[in-house]
């Protein structure tokens, strides 16, 4: 092999470089894809981006560190409402990225408190506590002043900065309208988040998480500080959820309590199970399914001659059937099952 090939192979083994390279590839691909699609598809991709960020954090929490959170919608709500409040009067006091960071910070603060409480609980009790959270937090928005009550708060996305519009146009020849802007923001955030999460998963911290979810007694004996590790996982996942919530506020353009029902939390969970617990690619696939499947199925239904109502009802049915199929035939999720096949082929397991 040539020196360059040897060098590249060696570099590829360094996790950070690997992740960064993949991330850059992803960013570039995304730039071109978003530029060439219609605003409608861009809007869908924006949705997929924030769902994937939330799913990524959740899959690390549940799949990696074994803590079942039934209430991640609550953290999305915190991030979303923070963003909505900051963007309420049009232009935010600081740049949009700052708004997103603020949303993450506020959500992490809440997440840390919940995580510390949850670290003392086990299994079903964590699930129960987080479920209570999922119900309580959106209701808070109904009772506190300034959060818009049932109607919620409008969110106006700030104007696309000219430098961004020009840069994108130079690279891809496409204009950036507000809908697409959120898509660009979302996918950039997604790539960055996934690179960081992938780093964590490959690191010592990630190993600790996997150990404690596998067998927490053995992990403790091996020296792992369970409480600390669990809280850390919780905080990381809520940071992702806060970022996702911030993007969601901009994509949906309104934050109202009914948008963060228990439904959202359970749906996110179902997405990561479908895709494959504990894998980022699984989180991505699950989010893609959540975003594109309902609309695709409904369109297919209408073109197959069904009435609008029937076609609309088809979407949850299709999703449910897929879930059942996955649980029965490929319980490790799509990615998990593919991996198992791969390992078996290579004789690892």
């Amino acid at each position, binding site marked *: 092999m040539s020196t360059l090939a040897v060098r590249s192979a060696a570099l590829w083994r360094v996790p*950070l470089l690997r992740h960064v390279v993949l991330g850059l590839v992803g960013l570039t691909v995304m730039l071109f894809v978003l530029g060439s699609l219609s605003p409608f598809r861009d809007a869908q991709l924006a949705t997929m981006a924030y769902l994937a960020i939330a799913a990524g954090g959740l899959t690390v929490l549940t799949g990696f560190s074994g803590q079942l959170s039934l209430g991640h919608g609550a953290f999305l709500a915190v991030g979303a409402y923070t963003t909505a409040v900051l963007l309420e009067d049009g232009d935010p006091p600081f740049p949009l990225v700052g708004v997103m960071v603020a949303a993450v910070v506020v959500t992490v603060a809440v997440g840390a408190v919940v995580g510390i409480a949850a670290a003392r609980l086990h299994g079903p009790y964590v699930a129960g506590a987080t479920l209570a959270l999922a119900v309580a937090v959106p209701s808070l928005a109904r009772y506190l002043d300034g959060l818009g009550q049932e109607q919620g708060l409008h969110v106006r996305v700030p104007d696309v900065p000219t430098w961004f519009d020009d840069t994108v146009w130079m690279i891809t020849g496409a204009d950036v309208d507000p809908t697409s802007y959120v898509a660009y923001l979302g996918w950039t955030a997604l790539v960055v988040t996934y690179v*960081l999460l992938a780093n*964590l998963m490959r690191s010592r911290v990630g*190993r600790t998480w996997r150990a404690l979810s596998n*067998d927490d*007694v053995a992990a403790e*004996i*091996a020296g792992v500080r369970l409480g600390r590790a669990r809280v850390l996982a919780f905080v990381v996942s809520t940071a992702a959820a806060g970022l996702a919530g911030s993007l969601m506020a901009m994509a949906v353009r309104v934050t109202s309590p009914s948008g963060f029902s228990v439904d959202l939390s359970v749906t996110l969970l179902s997405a990561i199970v479908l895709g494959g617990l504990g894998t980022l690619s699984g989180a991505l696939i699950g989010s893609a399914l959540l975003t594109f499947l309902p609309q695709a199925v409904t369109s297919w239904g209408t073109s197959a001659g069904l009435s609008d109502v029937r076609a609309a009802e088809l979407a949850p049915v299709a999703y449910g059937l897929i879930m059942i199929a996955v649980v029965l035939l490929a319980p490790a999720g799509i990615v998990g099952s593919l991996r198992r096949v791969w390992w078996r082929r290579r004789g690892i397991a």
Partner: protein
Amino acid sequence: MAQPVSTKAAEPLFAARGVSVRFGGVQALSQVSLEVAPHEVLGVIGPNGAGKTTLFNVLCGFAVPDEGELAWEGRPLGRVRPSQLAGLGMARTLQGLGLFDRMTVLENVMVGADHHARAGFWTGLFGLGHRDEARLVERSRAVLARLGVEDYAERMPGGLPYGVRKKVALARALVSEPRLLLLDEPASGLSPHEMEELGGVVRDLTATTATLLVEHHMDLVMSVCDHVTVLDFGRVIASGTPAQVQDDPAVTAAYLGTPVADGEVS
């Protein structure tokens, strides 16, 4: 009540003094004392129900005694949380092995080496810890090699033979370079050959690591241990070298039952 300091030449590495544990109405342990000197192997034996498991749990911090105290290197040891064991220089194994099934053998051992790791959260987040990782990998592979199972490093524990899995669990305990190793029935499920191997490993380890093992298999205990402590009904009924203990009538009685006058065994 504290007992007088041991008459051994060196300060014991690890000592338990007057440990008593009561569960409800049952006295599980009563005034149990023992010592492990550096570089020695201590065996704890006794019939079923003698309190060996309870004692073991107290020794590694899983259970709090009602009376008595533990001392590490002469200094009293308060309540020890399991995750603090490695920091103190102790390591234990589990009866059920407790291997992480969803991680490779190498990763299993690396978790045990966690204590030596330098990389923290932020290093991990930005992917900067690969040199630290490399060091951990090296250390872990070395331990696996020492036990003769380095070829299994990339495999998942799931499909491996029991003997290999036991070695991996031991490797995980050893990689933190403990001064004291606590083994919970290490010979169970092993073939005679593997048991011999294990004995060899434990003896080799005494250069750096003292061992306390709770065990049923007499052969292993007698051939490997420097000292043996015998428990029965929660009390120490004999303590000494293997030879001394073997000849002690109290020990025989405990295992076989006290002969009754007309020849029946109770």
